[in-house]
Every structure is written in C-alpha cells, then in structure tokens.
C-alpha cells in the first residue's frame, strides 16, 4: 500500500501542449539594449524606460539569493528570451479579432474569451508569454470607473496612476528577482478601483507561458481607493518542456482607507517530470500595502505546480486597524521544491494578521513554509495568529517550517501553532473497510486538511482547486 501512496500522485499534466502560433521573439540575452528594445516595442514613455534601466543597473550589483531551502543549477540569464509575443494580425478592437488559435488555446485551458461564453461574473485578462492578448468585460467595468486592463495599456492610458504607484510597495531594488522583473517586465494586469466602489465581479488574469526558453516577467498592480473593494483571481499554466523556464513576477497591491483587496491564486505551472526534468522556476514577489486605516488585504494561494516555488505573498500593515491575511495550500510531488510563506509587517496600531498554511508533500519533494511576523515599535496592540500544518504522503518527501517572529512592542500578541501529519496505511485501510477506495480516501483527507484555505476561495476557484488537487492525486491506484 505504501508503494501505492508513492505513485498516487502520478498524474499527467493536462496543460502541457504548445500552441503553434507565429511569435515575435527577440534573441536570447539581457543587456541595456534588450531593455530598450522591450520598452520601444511597448512604446513606453521615457520615465518607464528610466525605471527599467535603473532597476537593471541595480540588479547588476546584486547576488542571486541562496537562503531559500531549494536547490537548482545556476540560472544563465543570458540564455533566456525576454520578449515573446504572438504576432498580431492587426490592431484588435474586439474579441472577435483575436487570433482563433489563441482563442482555441484558452478555450482548451478552460478560459473562454468570448464574453457570451465567458465565466459568469468574472472579467478575465489573458497574458500569453510576454503580452496581454485580451481583456473581457472592460467596457462594463469602465462605466463604474474601474480600470481593468493589461499593464502595457495602463502605461499608455493611465500613466499618472502607474507612475504614482508602480514600485511603491515592491521597490525596484527590493530583491534580486524583483529587480530583474522591474528591468524586463513585459506585461501583466492593472486594476484600479475608484473611491467607494465595490467591484461587481471578480477580476481575473490567466497567465500562459508558450515559448520554450522564454521567461515570463509580469507585473500586476492593483489599487483600491478609499472604501473600494475587489476580489482578484490569478491562474497559470505552461507547456511541458524539458528545459526550465523562469517566471519572475511582481505583484503590488495598495489598499487605502477602508479598502479591501482579496487576491487568490491557483498556480499550476508545469512542474517537471517525475525525475525533476523541466518545469517552471516560479520566483515571485507579491506584497500588499494596507496603507489606509481599516484596510484589509487577503492572500489565498493554492500552489500545485512549478519545479521550484519561491514566493512569500506579504502584507505591510501601515494603516491603523488594518488586517492582513494569508491562506495557503502548497502541494509538492515528485522532485518539486517549494519554499513559500508570508511576511506580516505590523506598523500601525491595532493591526491584525492571520496566517493559515497547509503544506502537502508527496514523492521525493521538499516543501518548506517560511514566514515572518514582525511587530514594530509603534504597533500598539498588534495581534497575529499563525497556523502551519504539514502533511506527508509516503516516506521520501520532506516538510519544513521556518517561522520567524520579531516583536518590538510589548503590547503585541503573537500565536503560532504547527503540526505535522502523515496519511497512514491504517487510515487507508480504515476507509477501505468502509468501502472507500484509496483515491477517494486520500482526496477526502487532503480536502479536509485544506478546508480552512478552500473556504476562503471564491466559489469557481474553490471548485477548481478541489478538482486540481484531485487530479494531482489521481492515477495508478491498485
């Protein structure tokens, strides 16, 4: 039965196809010239190019971080393609003009782009390699003053907003991969929810890497003004290649007074094969700034893909009474490595944070939770509650927990709970004795384990996440 557990997670990756489409690809390699080319292709204003070049010059002085509990060969940044875009037939004015090949691709991925067929109540921006190819429900949202568009478009149409907020949460000098992203990012999503507006539908971006050897460096910026609220969803897939691809995104969230941003991710990048060949390096910087009083930022992530995940969606709780939340499920299988968690930085008074992390390790994978809770000297009566649970499937995987707690104010209250469990053969036998087969049993145990996180996901995503974990756990039983 333990052999069965080991292979229980052997599930072919369903999104591993390549779209045959003509792409505009620049040669491999990174230099100031390459950055100028990207900026020019995107017809960017001078300040945007300056932002990139400054980031690049700073990046050149930096060392790749090595503190994460992950192992991989050194990345040759000159072997990466920094810009790949499907060649547009002409300027698009409606969804009907999107290349049918692209429409088919996203249809196949379960992201229909025709608004009449689109997911009810969800507006989608789809990013294919380096560019955003379509955004649905844009007009409808615009009537409410909500801006939801590709990042490139925002630079053209709303330069003042981009200039004001870009880099204000994750500065271009923040860390190695954030600096690289600031230099070469190509597209992503931009959301602006004006004062007092509750976004009437979930906003969503679907990221797809298609080209071999291309990196994806997207930038997402979400701003919720005073009293505004929005729920944002992010999904990602990539074809199967036997080479590794780098995905180094930056996401910045800004919540002003009484604003609320809920950011949910279901990450299913290609994870490599069972021997660890291929797969995405997912090195992502995500951070939210609760700038205003009573603001709230909530991160929910279901991480199932990528060869390596290095990701810490964090909250800076600047405004008094602001709230930060982090709910995470990270599943690793085969040779996957994940070092993921969060940082909650309490600056304002009466700020509160909550961390619920569920790690599931299978195969020969290595799954680490790394989290920091920091209560600053002015953060009177700040509170944090953290719960980190790990579950092991089989006996060749690893789970680690690295909590860092730094309290500089004696009115603060920090709680940390952790547990490790294992799906045992006796549990599976107990299920079997009640007529329940191993697949259904494992799925039930895992879903029970992840319940607190799945409850936070918007409905469609919760269903999707449950299905995805089910798929990952399906196969070769018996």
């Amino acid at each position, binding site marked *: 039965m333990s052999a069965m557990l080991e292979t229980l997670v052997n599930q072919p990756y369903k999104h591993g196809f390549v779209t045959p489409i003509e792409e505009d690809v620049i040669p491999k390699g990174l230099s100031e010239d390459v950055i100028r080319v990207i900026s020019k292709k995107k017809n960017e204003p001078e300040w945007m190019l300056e932002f990139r070049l400054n980031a690049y010059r700073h990046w050149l002085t930096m060392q790749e971080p090595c503190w994460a509990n992950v192992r991989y060969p050194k990345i040759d940044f000159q072997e990466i393609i920094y810009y790949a875009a499907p060649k547009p037939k002409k300027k698009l004015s409606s969804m009907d003009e999107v290349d049918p090949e692209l429409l088919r691709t996203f249809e196949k991925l379960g992201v229909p782009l025709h608004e009449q067929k689109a997911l009810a109540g969800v507006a989608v921006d789809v990013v294919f390699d380096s560019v955003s190819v379509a955004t649905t429900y844009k007009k409808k949202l615009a009537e409410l003053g909500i801006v939801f568009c590709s990042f490139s478009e925002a630079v053209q149409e709303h330069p003042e907003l981009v200039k004001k907020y870009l880099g204000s949460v994750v500065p271009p000098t923040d860390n190695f991969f954030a600096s690289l992203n600031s230099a070469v990012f190509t597209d992503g999503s931009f959301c602006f929810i004006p004062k007092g507006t509750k976004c009437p539908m979930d906003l969503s971006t679907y990221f797809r890497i298609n080209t071999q050897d291309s990196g994806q460096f997207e930038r997402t910026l979400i701003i919720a003004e005073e009293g505004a609220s929005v729920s944002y969803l992010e999904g990602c897939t990539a074809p199967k290649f036997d080479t590794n691809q780098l995905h180094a995104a930056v996401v910045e969230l800004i919540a002003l007074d009484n604003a609320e941003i809920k950011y949910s991710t279901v990450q299913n990048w290609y994870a490599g094969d069972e021997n660890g060949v291929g797969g995405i390096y997912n090195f992502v910087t995500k951070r939210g700034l609760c700038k205003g009083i009573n603001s709230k930022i909530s991160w929910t992530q279901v991480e199932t893909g990528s060869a390596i995940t290095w990701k810490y969606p964090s909250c800076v709780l600047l405004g008094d009474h602001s709230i930060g939340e982090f709910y995470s499920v990270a599943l690793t299988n085969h040779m996957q490595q994940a070092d993921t968690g969060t940082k909650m930085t309490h600056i304002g008074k009466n700020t509160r944070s909550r961390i619920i992390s569920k790690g599931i390790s299978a195969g020969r994978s290595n799954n680490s939770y790394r989290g920091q809770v920091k209560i600053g000297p002015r953060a009177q009566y700040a509170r944090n509650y953290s719960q980190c649970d790990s579950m092991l499937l089989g006996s060749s995987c690893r789970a680690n927990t690295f909590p860092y707690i730094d309290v500089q104010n004696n009115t603060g209250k920090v709680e940390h709970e952790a547990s490790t*469990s294992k799906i*045992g053969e006796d549990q599976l036998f107990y299920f079997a*004795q*009640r*007529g329940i087969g191993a697949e259904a049993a494992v799925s039930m145990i895992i879903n*029970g384990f992840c319940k607190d996180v799945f409850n936070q996901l918007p409905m469609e995503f919760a269903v999707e996440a449950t299905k995805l974990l089910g798929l990952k756990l399906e196969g070769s039983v018996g």
Partner: protein
Amino acid sequence: MNNKNILLEVRNLSAEVAGIEILKGINLVVKAGEVHALMGPNGSGKSTFAKVLAGHIDYTVTGGEVLYQGKNLLEMAPEERSRAGVFLAFQYPIEIPGVSNSAFLRLAYNTMQAARGGEELDPLEFDDFIREKIKLVEMDPSFLDRSVNEGFSGGEKKRNEIVQMAVLEPKLAVLDETDSGLDIDALKVVANGVNHLTRPDNAIILVTHYQRLLNYIVPDYVHVIEGGQIVKTGGKELALELETRGYDWVRAEFDAARAAA
C-alpha cells in the same frame, strides 16, 4: 445443512504476519442469522483472523481458502469485501483528522449504495438518516461534526463503529473486541445497538476475551481459538465454563484428542 444459508466458509486457513505464522488451519462455517463468538487467550489469533477476513495488507494468507457467499473472499480487495457486505468493527478505530464524521459516514454510505444499486443521499437527506441511526447507540449529534474518531474516548470510538455498522448494514459483521475498554453502561448500549442490527439474513462474529459481552449478545456458537486453531466449539454455555475454568483445559483436551487420533 442448508447450503444456501451459508455466508462464510473458512477452510483450513493459515496466515502470517511479519513472517510469523499466527493462523494454523482455521475451519469455520457461518450461516445467515447466526451469532458466533470467537474466544481465546491473548495472542491466540482472534484479531488476526478478523483482520485477514477484512483483507489487511500486513497479513499474508499462506494456505486454505475463504468463501463468502460462495465467492473467493481472499481474491477481493478490502474495499470490495466491504461493498460485498463484510464489516469489521475495529479493535482500535483509526482517527482521521480534518474529515468530519458525517462526511465520512455519508461517503461510506453512498459508496455502499452505489455498489448495491441503491439511492445515494445528499447531505440534507443524509443528515436526517444519520440522526436516526445514532440514536441506536445514544450518540450525541455533536459527534457528527467532529473529525472521525479524533479526540473520542475509547467508548465513543466503539459506539462510532456500531454507528458505521448501522449505516452500512453489513451481511457479515466481525466485531473485534468491541467490548474492550467499555464500562458496563456503555457495554449495554453497544450490545443493545448490535442486537438491533441482527437479522435473519445477516451474521455476526464476536471476537472477545470475556464472557460478559455474551450476557447481552447471546451467541449461537462459541469457538475457542488457541495457537491459531479452533480447538473447541460449543453453545453459549461454553463461554460460562471458560469464565470459571480458564482456557488451559480446552487446549489439553484438544491435544489429547489429537494424540489419540
């Protein structure tokens, strides 16, 4: 003997665990409507026999055969045995953190219904159904919302096993030391629950150390298992005799009879 009523037929069954032979030729016939008690000292093979019937992976059958409703039980996977109506009440019920008791019971019930071609129940219908069932063992409804067996006392776990038996309505129920760890009140409750579940078309094998359970669940046959064999079979009065005389004389009698033969 009416062969149509035979539920279980065990012929010369031997089995080992971790390379050590525990069962050394068990013979047993169980017919519908019967209650069999399987008694014996520690280490005699009682629980091993129960686990072999359920198909636990740690136990390897080394000889003999087991026919259940005329089919080779040993060829069936554990979940197939369950779906065919073989139920094991565990001596040490397993805890399953994070999975609510009601969700677990519903999945088990619906899986069984699917196997029997019966109607599956949605969560609301099942709630009505299960609330009736738990009355049988006087279980508090709050146990339905708790994780399966997690933090349950020994007695609560045993009641939960009987609830599962009530939900699955097995043809052949093997109760492995269901009486151990129960105080006298709980014993009565559990025994009463089991008695309500006996029907002319099902059968029960009670694995127990002690006679006291048999005051409440009256067996048709009492078997003494010793050294991996059934060494004596009698009626319910045999249990009383064992209570006063212990097990040694049974073994002695068996060995003497074999020497004579």
